[in-house]
């Protein structure tokens, strides 16, 4: 995949964030500060504007631009977290003009490691990692088992959805939601919800 495919993925994610902005904000109002949907919508709208301005940028440049744009426009913790995710993907991509399935999976894994380092969270803390970690584990397992990228990304998206749903009973240990302690249980995590949209967008556009 090259700039066109990566651009389609990011645009699809932007559409999904916009379509689900009210839901993301509603989830965030229950346990956070009620801005995840509006923050991510603003950030991804800015990313799309950058894609429109330079649609043929090489993959690493495109991913770095997406990351830096999110850092400067999202505002909440999702800015540095999603920003780091795309910046680490860019670093992993290096100067390659095209990514194959293994290269894309490796870039996603590098992004995940960046999110872990940035947020100092682990699975079970009721964060975006609860969708991202099972998704990338499913992706790697499917690719290792001989699946094509499309099937592997669909497995990843399904795992992200399941991970998102599994955040409901968890007690938050990071971020604003952690101030609520036990009262954060019973609510779906907004960060895991937007991350599931990112994987669904990948399955829809990159398979």
């Amino acid at each position, binding site marked *: 995949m090259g700039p066109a495919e990566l651009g389609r993925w990011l645009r699809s994610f932007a559409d999904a964030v916009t379509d689900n902005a009210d839901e993301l904000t509603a989830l965030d109002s229950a346990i956070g500060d009620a801005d995840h949907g509006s923050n991510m919508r603003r950030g991804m709208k800015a990313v799309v504007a950058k894609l429109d301005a330079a649609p043929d940028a090489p993959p690493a440049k495109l991913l770095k631009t997406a990351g830096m744009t999110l850092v400067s*426009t*999202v*505002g*909440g*913790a999702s800015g*540095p*977290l999603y*920003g*780091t995710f795309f910046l680490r993907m860019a670093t992993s991509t290096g100067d390659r003009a095209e990514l194959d399935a293994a290269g894309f999976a490796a870039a996603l894994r590098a992004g995940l490691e960046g999110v872990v380092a940035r947020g100092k969270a682990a699975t079970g803390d009721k964060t975006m990692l609860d969708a991202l970690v099972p998704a990338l584990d499913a992706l790697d397992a499917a690719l290792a088992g001989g699946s094509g990228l499309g099937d592997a990304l669909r497995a990843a998206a399904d795992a992200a959805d399941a991970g998102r749903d599994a955040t409901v009973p968890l007690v938050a240990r990071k971020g*604003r939601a952690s101030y609520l302690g036990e009262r954060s249980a019973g609510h779906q995590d907004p960060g895991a919800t937007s991350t599931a949209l990112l994987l669904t967008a990948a399955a829809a556009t990159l398979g």
Partner: protein
Amino acid sequence: MEAAPVGIVVVSHSRALGTAAAELAREVVGTDVPIAVAAGIDETTTGTDAAAIATAIAGADRGSGVVVLMDLGSAVLSAEMALELLEDVGADPATRERTVLCPGPLVEGLVIAVATASTGADRHRVSEDAAAALGPKRTHLGKPWDE
């Protein structure tokens, strides 16, 4: 040659809060310590921006380093990320290792940090004093904090 004072960077979700906190510190301490504010996404949008923080750190470093005071949540993550973006904004390559992220409270810590920096103290001392900035208030208010 006398060393330049440590620079201070104020990171807040709110531009109004960050700007006012810096004004308060200048008013209380009255000094030429460089204070840079990186607060809000714009004048009215709440949030923090790691690239803007990196630019503020680069501008506040006069050679003696920088102490960063921040409010909470994404301000902390964005400040940490800013250290990785210093090269991108053209900072002195040595700025990263002479930048200290201070765990002190924003308003009290900022006033103490500026006061300490104005005495010519180094960045570690500035950060330590700012991190202990709730001490006088705790002592004054006494119980229940002492129990």
